[in-house]
């Protein structure tokens, strides 16, 4: 219970960092998809069991803030979460940095596709924004690869360290 509560607090903090700090940085640094990267890491490392709810939570908060494409974020992140979970369970079962990188690339592509379709359905008068949106997500893909390459060894080291410590305490 405490662990779940801690996860919820951590997720909220991560989302606030994303929408209040990273998104306000100058281009292209505002394209770092921090929440997505952490969620992909969690989904992949837990075999699809954890992390997917983070993405749905992120979609909910984006919708609550009404900041990007209101009422469509939850839908696009819901599809993304389910898809990444299925991928982690059945397709990208290799838990390496490459697997996670590919999962994040697929994730961002799916997100771009969903958002494009939703934009065309609900706000077709703004269809001219699609190339810009795609370009933004391409930057996001580049960042996710860089962040994975830099942080994956650190995350793996920390996770092993925590496991070893838990086993010793048992």
């Amino acid at each position, binding site marked *: 219970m405490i662990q779940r509560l801690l996860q919820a607090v951590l997720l909220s903090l991560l989302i606030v960092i994303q929408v*209040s*700090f990273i998104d306000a940085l*100058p281009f292209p640094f505002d394209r770092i998809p921090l929440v997505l990267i952490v969620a992909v890491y969690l989904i992949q490392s837990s075999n699809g069991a954890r992390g997917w709810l983070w993405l749905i939570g992120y979609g909910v908060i984006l919708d609550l803030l009404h*900041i990007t494409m209101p009422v469509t974020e*939850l839908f696009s992140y819901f599809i993304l979460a389910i898809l990444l979970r299925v991928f982690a369970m059945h397709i990208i079962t290799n838990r390496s940095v490459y697997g996670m990188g590919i999962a994040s690339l697929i994730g961002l592509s799916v997100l771009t596709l969903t958002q494009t379709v939703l934009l065309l359905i609900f706000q077709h008068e703004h269809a001219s*924004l699609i190339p*810009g949106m795609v370009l933004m997500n391409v930057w996001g893909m580049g960042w996710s690869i860089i962040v994975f390459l830099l942080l994956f060894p650190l995350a793996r080291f920390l996770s092993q360290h925590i496991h070893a410590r838990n086993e010793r305490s048992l």
Partner: protein
Amino acid sequence: MKARFSIRRYRRPVAYAFLLILIMLMVVFRVGIVGIIEPVAVPLVQLSTWVSDKIFWWKESQRITPEALEDLYSQRTQLALEVVEVNRLKEENALLREEINFQERTGLTTISAQIIAKSISRSVNRFVLNVGEQEGIRLGSPVISHDGIFVGKIMELSKHSSTVSSVTDPSQSIAVSLLNESRTIGVASGIIGDLIQIDFIPVDEQIEENDLVVTSGLEASIPSGLLVGLVNTVRQEADSPFKQAIVEPLSDSRRIASVLVIISSETLP
């Protein structure tokens, strides 16, 4: 044999259904999210604004070539001349106000608001404020920087928060007027690249680079004369009866952490 009803079997679906209903209610009523994140979000936006200003100054400086610098000097001179013109217009305006007796122009009040989240990209340029309906904000209320430059207008509203669509947001349109000889009016909308575009300007209108663009006052809640930007380029396609003006906005949503919202004194709580 008839299977026994067990509440445990339905615990998970019921929990998910409850969660879904809760999420839907939160989405509809936008409950308290801003109040929860505000203590962390406001310092983060200020930090990010500081980072944009102090750390990434080189991004701006790289863009300035000697020719651009020369342009800036000439713009400054032009602006100084404009100030003289504006002062003359102010006096004229004061006289006209007395004549026309526009009550709403005298009743304007501003309230200060903190930015708690930003979404600034090529396709979206919006930010969330920590003030809402309860503080007297209304849909369409104009948002200005502390030095009085038009930043955007309120596009989403809840009890204690509101979303501002910045002047460069592609989904945003505002009624503007150019401070040229004929006081050309038009509708400006955001375009990709943090610029604004004014379409359908008749070819016989005289528009020059560096003409000042201000709000026209034709929108119900937006007063006239709020500074929006400077004309950067004037374009005209062959055989077209209209021309286009590309306007460089004077406000930069990346560089602001707090704003003023113009409200009518009647809507004050």
